[in-house]
């Protein structure tokens, strides 16, 4: 029998601590599974979420993520929007380069996360904060019966 995924509702999760990062990963995994994402796709999205949430915490001084289920025709997806009111990014192009780092990491946070999702957008104002929005789409026809 086909598994009928549970409903996925929009949610806002705080990003203030290590424990919040773990919670964001678990919630994103659950939503992706409910939307019918395959295991590899789930893993990619959760990893991207982990990178971006850590950016929000470490570089943005904390913030939140909005988790929103989205649809495009019969395709279903998940949109994650990470927002902080930290120092912002002065040179976005430079920050998106592999190996660029300001926090002692491997410098793969932004550029790596971009490769793990289908859509990627960044909105930053120096001194005001940064919002990174990513979307991943479930491949093919979803296993649920939307609209029924």
């Amino acid at each position, binding site marked *: *029998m*086909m598994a*009928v995924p549970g409903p996925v509702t929009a949610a806002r999760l705080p990003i203030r601590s290590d424990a919040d990062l773990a919670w964001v990963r678990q919630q994103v995994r659950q939503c992706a599974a409910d939307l019918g994402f395959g295991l*590899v796709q789930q893993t990619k999205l959760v990893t991207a979420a982990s990178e971006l949430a850590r950016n929000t915490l470490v570089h943005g001084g904390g913030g939140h993520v909005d988790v929103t289920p989205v649809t495009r025709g*019969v395709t279903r997806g998940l949109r994650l929007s990470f927002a902080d009111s930290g120092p912002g990014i002065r040179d976005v192009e430079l920050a998106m380069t592999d190996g660029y780092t300001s926090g002692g990491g491997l410098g793969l946070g932004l550029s790596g996360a971009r490769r793990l999702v289908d859509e990627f957008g960044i909105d930053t104002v120096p001194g005001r904060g940064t919002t990174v929005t990513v979307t991943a789409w479930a491949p*093919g*026809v979803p*296993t649920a*019966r939307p*609209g*029924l």
Partner: protein
Amino acid sequence: MSEQETVESTARRLGAFLELRREQIAQRWADAPLFRTVFTVSREEAVEACKAVVDALAGVASSGRLEDITSSGFDSVRDQLGRMTDAWTRMGASPARIADEVAALRSPVAELLRAESPDPAAPEAAEGLLAFTALMGTLRLVVMQTALTSGEELIERQRQQLLEVATPVISLWEGVVAVPLIGTLDSARSQVVMESLLEGIVARRAQYAILDITGVPTVDSLVAQHLMKTVAAARLMGAECIVSGIRPAIAQTIVQLGIDLSPVLTRASLADALAYALSRLGIEVSPRASTR
């Protein structure tokens, strides 16, 4: 009474009728092809399934929304209807055919409804029958929608299965697996190849994995990139990946495109790749000394 009120009271009466005659209707429907063909284990099972549908219809009728296919009254049977249409679809029935079978459920109940009515000529009797017809029309649409969705899912499943069938993971030796690639590699297929190879490595505890591209007509930079990603992912899991069967023309293209395949271990043929893996595993293969 306004027209609206008349419609609603007719619907409620219809709901009450369905509840009252639940057992009789279910007994009649259990013999209809729609249920009989799907619930083959026992008649009892078919009767139970029919009762669930009658209950759902009674619920929808009582709510007064006879023509609303999104009515929550149908929620309790959507799964069951989904399984039924799946079974019909697998037998090759089109959604239209399934819808016809639903329509055939109408007349046995209409007979009962007519028999219940003290005066078949009275306007109430005609209204009741009309309301029931509308309700069955709605059920037919619900089933049709379910069947159409399940058809789309079937196509998607078959497409996915085809991709997987096209990329078998073969055990060549204990600890050595191979994927012979034949045909054009696009992005979706490369993804499936990568996943099945890595799953194969785990399932067979393989230390060596051979990707044989003898049957791949062209290698562009995208395909080369996928090959390198597969090799890197296999290494992270603790297995070594060997790419074999690079034909001279393809070797030339790779060089001309400026693709650096040097991190990838390559061998001319599948046999060479297997020989390499065996020697690394410490296995020697030599011709048996002639006994004659």
